[in-house]
């Protein structure tokens, strides 16, 4: 195939498909076994310094924040992160110097709430490097190729732009149509963490609402930590198997954590904690502010339940539940 153009971005997390099959053969158990453990154990076992990590959900929606905070608490370093519309998760991980390289589709912003002072500052002062650019579909399809066990997937985005030039794609002449076509390389994150509504102790998971990229991400990640609002019986899974979106053999750890996405949203259960996000956006304008936030919410508490108490406890969580049900009006404390 004639190569017309090659992106100059660093190729992150790609493996020869046979090499990845070997990894799966040796490391991914097909045994139906209890994988429940604490967030502390899951992070210490499955997230290593230098790993390429990816977080599930989208923006501030259904993010495994209990794992994100645990990564910071354990002082993991030199991580590369998939900036696949990664928002609060990426911002606190970069701000705390756990992540120092990012492949960006959408990063360094909090959508309508504004840009991220902390992670932007880290990039603008050279402490965090953007190693490659891509787009949301571009990232999504890196996971799709990984899930399929093929080296790349063809697509028609990223063409003609600097985003493509700074990405890890190759543009070739399509042997069928004769037109230029993008080849998006597969991605196999070393570790991914996805928050779900419910799963059994083996990891069979159900998600309410949109899947975003998690169907594909769960299937290409080498290590997968599932955090769940609730652990349910395997019989419940088997009664309605069509509701399972992540089957157990993909899962390495199951962590039960009620409100585990806070301050992010969980479809049908609790809303964004806008006051908490506004506090972060305000204090993270300085390095000292980032340290204060992390001391208060991460290092100063022993686990996520204690963190929820510091965030306002039952009263706050009840408010977020009622806000998600639209029983109380929206507040936007981050507005200038």
């Amino acid at each position, binding site marked *: 195939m004639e190569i017309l153009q090659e992106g100059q971005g660093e190729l992150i997390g790609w493996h020869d498909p046979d090499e990845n099959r070997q990894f799966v053969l040796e490391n991914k158990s097909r045994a139906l076994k209890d994988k429940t453990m604490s967030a502390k154990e899951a992070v210490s076992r499955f997230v290593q310094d230098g790993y390429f990590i990816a977080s599930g*959900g*989208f*923006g*501030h*929606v*259904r993010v495994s924040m209990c794992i994100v905070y645990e990564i910071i608490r354990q002082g993991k370093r030199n991580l590369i992160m998939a900036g696949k*519309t990664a928002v609060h998760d990426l911002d606190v991980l970069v701000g705390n110097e756990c992540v120092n390289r990012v492949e*960006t*589709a*959408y*990063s*360094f*912003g909090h*959508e*309508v*709430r504004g*840009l991220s002072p902390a992670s*932007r500052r880290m*990039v*603008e002062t*050279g402490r965090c490097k*953007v190693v490659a*650019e*891509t*787009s*949301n*579909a*571009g990232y*999504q*399809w890196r996971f799709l190729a990984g899930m399929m066990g093929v080296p790349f997937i063809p*697509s*028609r*985005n*990223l*063409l*003609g*732009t*600097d*985003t*493509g030039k700074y990405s890890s794609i190759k*543009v070739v002449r399509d042997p069928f149509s004769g*037109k*230029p*076509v*993008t080849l998006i390389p597969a991605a196999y994150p070393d570790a991914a963490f996805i928050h779900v509504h419910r799963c059994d102790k083996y990891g069979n998971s159900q998600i309410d*609402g*949109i*899947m*975003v*990229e*998690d*169907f594909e991400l769960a299937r290409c990640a080498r290590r997968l930590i599932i955090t769940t609002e609730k652990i349910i019986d395997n019989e419940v899974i088997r009664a309605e198997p069509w509701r399972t979106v992540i089957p157990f053999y993909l899962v390495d750890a199951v962590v039960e954590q009620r409100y585990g996405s806070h301050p992010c*949203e969980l*479809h049908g259960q609790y809303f*964004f904690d806008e006051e908490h996000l506004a506090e972060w956006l305000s204090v993270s304008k300085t390095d000292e502010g980032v340290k204060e936030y992390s001391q208060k919410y991460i290092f100063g508490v022993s686990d996520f339940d204690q963190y929820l108490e510091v965030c306002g406890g039952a009263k706050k969580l009840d408010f977020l539940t009622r806000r998600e049900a*639209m029983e109380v*009006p*929206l*507040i*936007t404390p981050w507005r200038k």
Partner: protein
Amino acid sequence: MGNEQGKSYNMREFLAFTAAGILEDGKSAFVGTGLPMIAGMLAQKTHAPNLLLIFEAGSIGPQLPELPISVGQGLTCYRAVAASSMHDVMSACQAGFIDYGFLGGAQIDVYGNINTTCIGEHDHPKVRLPGSGGANDIASFSHKTVLMFGAQSKRTFVEKLDFLTTPGFLYGPGAREKAGLPANTGPYRVITQLAVYGFHEKSRKMMMLSLHPGVSVEEVRDNCSFDVIIPEKYGLSPEPTTRHLELLRKEIDPTGMLIGK
């Protein structure tokens, strides 16, 4: 500013109204967070009740009761026909099911190319912006792309982008097809606080179509670093009616989160 019924409105309300007017009933629109979402909701509540709204995170065909903060939140599935995935909706877009894509940006050039990645050099940016998000995909795949810039100035309407994040007509006629982008796609309208623009059929350069009430051609030129085409005949942009303003303020964005107070 005020409409014929004497009701005053702000610039964001005007932009939302103007963008909504482009959307047609029975067509599909890929809408992002912010003003595009408001425009989609306003169109649904007025002339286009069967406008199919699609969100990049996976929701298809919602009838939104209030303005979502994010394109991924649970509310985007309210009375939707499907809660799907990014792969599904981006594939639908690539396969040709999306009529209108809505985008904003930090910089735009004469061919409707957009920058949302960085100001300054990529590897040593003066300002790091969020990057493409879904914008590169939406502008590559949608049949027509509508671009919204609330702050047209010499700083945002630039001769040369610091970074070409998202494709417009790239460098001129035929450039999109030559690059391999889907045929007959590209930027369709640019809406700013001063005017509505289209693109010249032959040169693919930005061309003014209508001027907003109270704005002069000089203001348009003074707030643009490239030579925008000003044809001999151009229109006057319509103003929001009292009904549109009430829908925006009372139903769509009652907190004034995006349209302001």
